[in-house]
């Protein structure tokens, strides 16, 4: 739990900034049986990022990385919209799109675990080719669809709560159950710690790695459906562009190491919320659009710095007995680093 302390503090600080600029920021109200409010918006617009980050967390836990999720987001939305615009069967469109995403994920997993290509390059292939594939599906155009039942996925409500938030809760619940209540999480962490040692210990490393890439692609696929449904259109060019970087950032802010071997689902959700809140804050505070990236860079740097134990040690030098014991501790860190 202590690992989550700093992300929580950062999120609280960001929300406080919002409260300062918009006093009514925390108010949530009911309109026509739906929940409305800035906090709900953060959750609603952050839902795709949370989903993608969840998948990314497991991939990173195995010591890999998945750069292709942005392209998978675009492909999923494009295929679903194409299918709906052709004959209107929403369910078949969703199943088809998610099926293709799982296939793409299996392909990534096969390249990493089967062929043995370094994950960053293996998924770079699909990142480049997948963006082209999405544009091929949409024929370089933006496909708009007019389907109320498809609209539900990203823009609808169920029991007054936006459907997207519920979807995230379900995926989060299932993932948390599978990885923390069953042995799967430990297996993933052990593969991330040392794939070869895990294999010798009797764990099917390959199967685990392929599974997490398929899961990451599936999550990205659902996120793609959400994004496409929210705007009722598919844009092969721009849907999910650079979402992989935000997702990786969310995972790391949440305390998961890129070296693999351990992960924190709660931390990832917090990380994704921090990034979404930051985006909302930048807009609500009224930063000119040219400097949004600059602000983002500074906040990200600050968040990462404040999370680093070494930085806190150097900047917030504590007086008293801890200061005298520090050299010894530092020595130990240097040897085990």
């Amino acid at each position, binding site marked *: 739990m202590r690992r989550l302390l700093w992300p929580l503090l950062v999120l609280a600080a960001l929300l406080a900034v919002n409260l300062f600029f918009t006093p009514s920021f925390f108010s949530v109200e009911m309109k026509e049986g739906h929940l409305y409010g800035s906090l709900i918006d953060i959750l609603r617009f952050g839902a795709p990022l949370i989903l993608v980050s969840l998948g990314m967390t497991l991939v990173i836990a195995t010591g890999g990385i998945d750069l292709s999720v942005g392209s998978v987001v675009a492909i999923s939305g494009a295929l679903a919209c194409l299918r709906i615009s052709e004959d209107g069967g929403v369910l078949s469109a969703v199943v088809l799109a998610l099926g293709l995403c799982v296939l793409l994920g299996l392909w990534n997993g096969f390249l990493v675990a089967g062929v043995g290509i370094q994950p960053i390059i293996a998924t*770079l292939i699909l990142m480049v080719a997948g963006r*082209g594939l999405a544009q091929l599906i949409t024929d370089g155009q933006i496909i708009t669809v007019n389907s109320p039942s498809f609209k539900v996925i990203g823009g609808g409500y169920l029991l007054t709560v936006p459907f997207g938030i519920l979807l995230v809760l379900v995926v989060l619940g299932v993932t948390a159950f599978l990885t923390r209540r069953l042995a799967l999480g430990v297996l993933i962490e052990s593969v991330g710690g040392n794939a070869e040692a895990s294999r010798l210990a009797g764990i099917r490393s390959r199967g685990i790695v392929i599974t997490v890439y398929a899961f990451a692609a599936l999550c990205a696929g659902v996120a793609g459906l959400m994004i496409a449904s929210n705007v009722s259109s598919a844009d092969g060019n721009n849907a999910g562009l650079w979402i992989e970087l935000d997702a*990786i950032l969310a995972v790391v802010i949440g305390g998961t190491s890129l070296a693999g071997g351990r992960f924190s689902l709660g931390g990832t959700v917090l990380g994704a919320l921090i990034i979404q809140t930051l985006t909302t804050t930048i807009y609500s505070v009224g930063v000119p659009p040219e400097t949004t990236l*600059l602000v983002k860079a500074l906040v990200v740097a600050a968040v990462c*710095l404040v999370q680093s134990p070494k930085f806190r040690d150097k900047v917030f030098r504590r007086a008293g007995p801890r200061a005298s014991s520090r050299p010894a501790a530092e020595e130990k860190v240097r040897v085990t680093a």
Partner: protein
Amino acid sequence: MTTAILDRLGARGRSVPAKYVPVLVTAGLFVAMFVAGGIRYEGFATGQVVLNVFIDNAFLLVVAVGMTFVILTGGIDLSVGSVVALSTMISASLMAGPGWPPYLVVPLVLLIGSALGLVMGYIVHAFDIQPFIVTLAGMFLARGLCYTIGTDSIPIEDPTFTAFAQTRIDLFADLWISPSVVIAVVVVLVAAYVLHYTRLGRTVYATGGSEQSALLMGLPVGRTKVAVYTISGFCSALGGVLLSFYMLSGYGLHAVGMELDAIAAVVIGGTLLTGGSGFLLGTVLGVLVLGLIQTVLSFEGTLSSWWTKIFIGLLLFVFILLQRLFSARRRI
């Protein structure tokens, strides 16, 4: 074709040390691709086509050299593309607005790039934050600075600058190169010297091989890590200057995604992302392979932009797969 290469490798087999195999495989595949292109397209198998690959990718080559240093220590630098864009932006705006002369602007740009790298390297080293994240923040920062300077493309009209950019250096038999190529080649040679014949180079390999062992041997690991990010920042800035020669404009959207090209080039060249293993020659070949893929696609003509992306992905896949197969076979 490929079996011939395989046979050649197999025949020479034992005499080639295992560490050179990935580079040799990349070289073999590059030649194979060039020959295949020569058979398929008219006017492909000429010296100028190879030189054009150099001319069109001189900036990428310089950036990839910096990236090689970083990856050899086991790090990664995602900021390079943005620093390239920032360099074009700063040069263009300083020459267009206050009318600064190039001989002031270029050193300033190189200094800014190195300083950015230095700061990122220091953060990576001093606060133990993962390089991926630090340089990602650096990427946002540099790109953000570009947009703060201006959101439009700024043309470069300085006479000295444009004259230098349009210079053609004639070689023998109607072949020519641009001054950028000369600069890139010099950078490669200096970098190769530093990596293989200096203490810094030795420490770079040692740090990437095992940081802990390097520390225990008393090598200056921290200083080396800061140094490689500074080198990468410098190379990115220089790459940006070369790109402004090539484009004759500064624009915040230049070189989007170039970091991935640079990483791909380094990895195709046989360098391991975990660090400690790889050669600069491999990186050069990696850049050439990426450039040749572009050339093949331009000779193919009539491809829509999405087919181009799909083909780049496919060729990348085939290439990495072949390289993987050959290297794996050699190792057994």
